[in-house]
């Protein structure tokens, strides 16, 4: 039972990290109708900036907090310099241009920070285990990720549901042309949304950094999962992205924690342990295909 709880927590932690990445992606795709493959680069940039600032300030919390506005500025700069020119273009052009951005950012990081990876240490006050239940230890840092991730998810839900910006975001997601016609400053709204997405991606990147290392291309693998999540959740829907991220997080953990034992009931032990990681990698895509058959616009997508 405790074991199950711990594995569920592991899945929640993974899911929350992916939600932070997917939230920005689903906003840009839903509201701005922009396919942004370079979203993973912002995840990487956030982690690298945090690495530098943590080194300068000698404090994890301070460095991480300063890295967020810095990533916001990078996001806004990218929007103004490159992305803004892509709104009127078709999706293929957007894919090509943002793919180019991935290459650009990878080389930029190589030039600025060097080819080797960087490592961010877990802050000392979190470098221990806490007892989530009496006698059940859990790494404090991973618990902190859950707390921060959940807080940001609630903040985002409030922002989208209760504020004027959120109202415009929702309006933009359902009918972009109409809010432009109503006199809303679309350019400013788009810059803000893109910057906001960059902040969430950067936050995910810097929180993942002490667990996985900071390296070139670190966002490229996880971007694919984030794309799967927003397709499952329905493009433009924050709620959908959240639920899909939670489900994908749990599937990943089930695939790693329980699938090998399930397979062992009818396969040889060594075949089962090498088949399990392969199957768990595929499970997420099977889910995506199933959801698309059942609901072609995703779980919470706008019906067209």
């Amino acid at each position, binding site marked *: 039972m*405790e*074991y199950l709880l*711990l*594995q569920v927590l*592991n899945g929640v*932690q*993974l899911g929350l990290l992916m939600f932070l990445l997917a939230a920005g992606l689903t906003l840009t795709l839903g509201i701005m109708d922009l396919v942004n493959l370079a979203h993973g680069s912002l995840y990487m940039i956030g982690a690298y900036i945090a690495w530098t600032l943590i080194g300068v300030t000698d404090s994890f919390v301070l460095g991480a907090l300063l890295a967020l506005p810095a990533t916001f500025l990078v996001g806004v700069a990218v929007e103004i310099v490159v992305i803004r020119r892509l709104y009127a273009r078709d999706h293929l052009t957007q894919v090509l241009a943002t793919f180019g951005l991935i290459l650009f950012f990878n080389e930029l990081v*190589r030039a600025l920070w060097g*080819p*080797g*990876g960087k*490592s961010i240490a*877990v802050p000392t006050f979190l*470098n*221990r*285990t806490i007892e989530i239940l009496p006698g059940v*230890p859990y*790494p*404090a*840092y*991973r618990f902190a990720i859950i707390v921060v991730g959940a807080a940001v998810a609630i903040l985002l839900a409030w922002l989208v549901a209760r504020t004027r910006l959120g109202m415009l975001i929702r309006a933009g997601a359902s009918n972009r042309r109409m809010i432009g016609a109503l006199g809303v400053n679309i350019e400013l709204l788009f810059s803000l949304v893109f910057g906001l997405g960059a902040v969430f991606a950067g936050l995910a990147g810097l929180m993942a950094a*002490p*667990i*996985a*290392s900071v*390296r*070139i*291309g670190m966002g490229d*693998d996880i971007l694919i999962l984030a794309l799967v999540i927003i397709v499952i959740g329905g493009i433009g829907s924050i709620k959908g992205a959240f639920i899909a991220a939670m489900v994908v997080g749990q599937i*990943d*953990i089930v695939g*790693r*924690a329980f699938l*090998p034992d399930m397979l062992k009931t009818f396969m040889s*032990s*060594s075949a089962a*342990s*090498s088949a*399990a*990681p*392969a199957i*768990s*990698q595929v499970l997420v895509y099977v889910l995506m295909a199933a959801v698309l058959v059942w609901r072609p616009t995703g779980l919470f997508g706008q019906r067209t």
Partner: protein
Amino acid sequence: MKNRLFGTATIAAAMALGLPAMAQSPIKVGFVSTFSGPQAAIGEDMRRSVELAKEHLGGKMGGKPFEIIYEDDQFKPDVGKARSEKLVQQDKVNFISGYIWSNVLLASLKTVVDEGDTILISANAGPSAIAGELCNKNFFSTSWQNDQTPMAMGDYLNTKGVKSLYLVGPNYAAGKDMLAGVKRTYKGKIVSEDFTKWPDQLDFSAELTKIAAAKPDGIFIFYPGAHGVQFVKQWAQSGLNKTVPLYQVFSIDAITLPQQGDLALGTLGAQEWVNDLPGEANKKYVEDFKKKHGVYPSYYGAQSYDAIMLMASAADALKGDLSNKDKVRAEMKKANFKSVRGDFKYGNNNFPIQNFYIQEAVKDPQGMMTVKTIATAVKNAVDPFAEKCPMK
């Protein structure tokens, strides 16, 4: 007509002039390793050792100058294969070496040793297939066959009386060989055997939770480079370092220790080379390396250093004339050079027959993390696939 005649004459003249020039040309060595991305630190350690070997040789093999062309495999089998192809076909190298990763080596092998008829010396990867049925006269190793190092660890765990073991490793060629290796010799109970996604999985929360629930006497891991850093960190973060000891191969070394730091102290591993092994060649290598770079070299570097020395031994014996490949191979097979691990012989499959040691992670007198030899695990070990190799 006149023009064509002139053209042919020019080509003939160029060829006539070109041939002696070729004989004077330097010996070329290609070196494929990972120089970018998260595992670039390993490639850098190898490059430093290759450069040190060149310096120790005075820049010459068999009286001829030699040049080294480095290529980055980017940690990807397809890129490694393309880079190897370029070295063989375009640069026409005499030797090709490097190869950290078994999957990169397996992808590159055929283009080098079959199609290119070039001699390849693996300075790290030793997949079981190349030791067995795919063994090749053009392939030599200055490292080991993948199964051997974990086999040595398994032997040691028997003598230490570790009763049960949980195995974790990455799901690719080397990961499978390594876990199979420890199972060949370890006689205690294998609690479970988990493979993780390679190379993108750097989060081991699910696996560590499983280990905590299974309560084994020990964990055995194989996670080279950046992955080893993450596993050891997360093992310590989970609190398991207080209850379940970690036994490892290729996961705690001179590359990873600066980042693992105190968390790794006291952990045991197996290796065919350790920086404190006796012998003049090893002292010279380790001391000069430390003087130059301020850090300890790793086995990746030591094996690369040996690879260059092995080439030099053959070139020296043949006075720099590498045109007859049969002679080159015969000279290499003698392993007639001062290896930093101490002398070794080549088996029928061109893998070394050598000792393996047990090493412990410690702090040196200056406070720098390193490893030291604490026992000899096995002597003159022959890999288990040698008999499957048809070569004599």
